[in-house]
Every structure is written in C-alpha cells, then in structure tokens.
C-alpha cells in the first residue's frame, strides 16, 4: 500500500540550476507533508514542511508546493548546490496518527 510515492528514483542537475523533486499521495486525510534529506549512514534530516491547508511554504532556497486536487507536492531547490546531493524523502502525517509515511526517496545529484 504505497500511500506516498516518489516515482523518480534519481535526478541529476547542474549547480546553480533548479532541482524539482516530486511526490504523489493517495490519502486525502494527510495533515502535514514533510521533506527530509538523508546522507548515507545518517538519519533523515528535516528540511521543510507544509500544512494541508496551505499551497506553498518557502524557507531560503527550499520551497514546497502542494496541489491538493492533484494530490501532488513538489520540492524546489534553487539554486542547487553540490552539497545538496543526497536522498530526498517525501513524507506525510495523518490527522489521527503521528506516524510518518515515507516515499521511496529520490537521489539528487548536483554536478559542479
């Protein structure tokens, strides 16, 4: 039961350009959506979140967009930097549960 899906396993972009990571979900009861960044041998690190009542949240180079009608969210990183190279996980939290449901992850490579 894949309630949160990241259909692109990998993405490669040039330094300075925009990275767009996509995520789709099936459960309309999710309250919050979060993006985590993960390096090998480390735990997921929280990047940015968005409440289901909003359609955009921005924090520095990171912006998350939520399209509830399409059940789709995306993370934009601009400008991309080589240090952004990592695995990015989309996750969602439901209204009556605290557990995170993760997508499969997208490996981002930012080339210098």
């Amino acid at each position, binding site marked *: 039961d894949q309630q949160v899906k990241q259909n692109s396993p990998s993405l490669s972009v040039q330094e300075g350009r925009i990275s767009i990571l996509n995520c789709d979900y099936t459960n309309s009861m999710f309250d*919050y959506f979060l993006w985590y960044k993960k390096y090998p*041998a480390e735990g997921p*690190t929280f990047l940015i*979140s968005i409440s289901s009542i909003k359609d955009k949240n921005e924090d520095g180079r990171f912006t998350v967009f939520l399209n509830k009608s399409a059940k789709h969210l995306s993370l934009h990183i601009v400008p991309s930097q080589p240090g952004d190279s990592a695995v990015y996980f989309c996750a969602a*939290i439901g209204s009556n*549960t*605290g557990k995170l449901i993760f997508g499969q992850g997208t490996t981002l490579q930012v080339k210098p």
Partner: protein
Amino acid sequence: EPEVTQTPSHQVTQMGQEVILRCVPISNHLYFYWYRQILGQKVEFLVSFYNNEISEKSEIFDDQFSVERPDGSNFTLKIRSTKLEDSAMYFCASSSGTGDGYTFGSGTRLTVV
C-alpha cells in the same frame, strides 16, 4: 541544536540472539518513534510511543519487538530473537507533536548473521 542520540551505531548479532537498541530523545519531546530502513528500501514506521505506552504499531512490530522508556530519558527497542531479515538501519525519532517537530537520530545499523 538538540539532537536524538542513538547507540550503538553498528551492532552485529547472531540469529536468534536478543538485541537492544538505545535512543536518547530530545528532552522536551513527548512522542517517540522507531523506524527502520532495509537496504535499498524506504523508511518504514515500526512503532510510536506516548505517555508511557505504545500508541500505534505497524504489522512489522510483532511479538518479537518491544519498546521501553525505562528511566525518563532513554527509549529502547528490543528484538527478542533476531532473524536475518531484521538486518536494517533502525532510526529513533522524537517529536513535540507539531507537524514539523520530528527529529531523527543517526540510526543503528543492525546486522544479523
């Protein structure tokens, strides 16, 4: 910045042995979680813990698993009789309860041989 601490970073154990994975959550957080990631797969929820009891658990969290908060600061995951398929990275997390207050530890890599 407050962090969630997990020990050990790597544990190797023989099949059938018991293991205890330890976590020190952020001190003012109220919700505690264990997740795991089998190599090459996505991060999966195991269990959540609030007010000294399990609030939710997944199908993975069967009778071989248990959690405990023995002393008000540590949060442990015990696997009673490990199986080869328990080999994974186990992540502890804690939360203040708000949507963006979820902090993960660095994980314990469990290898069952």
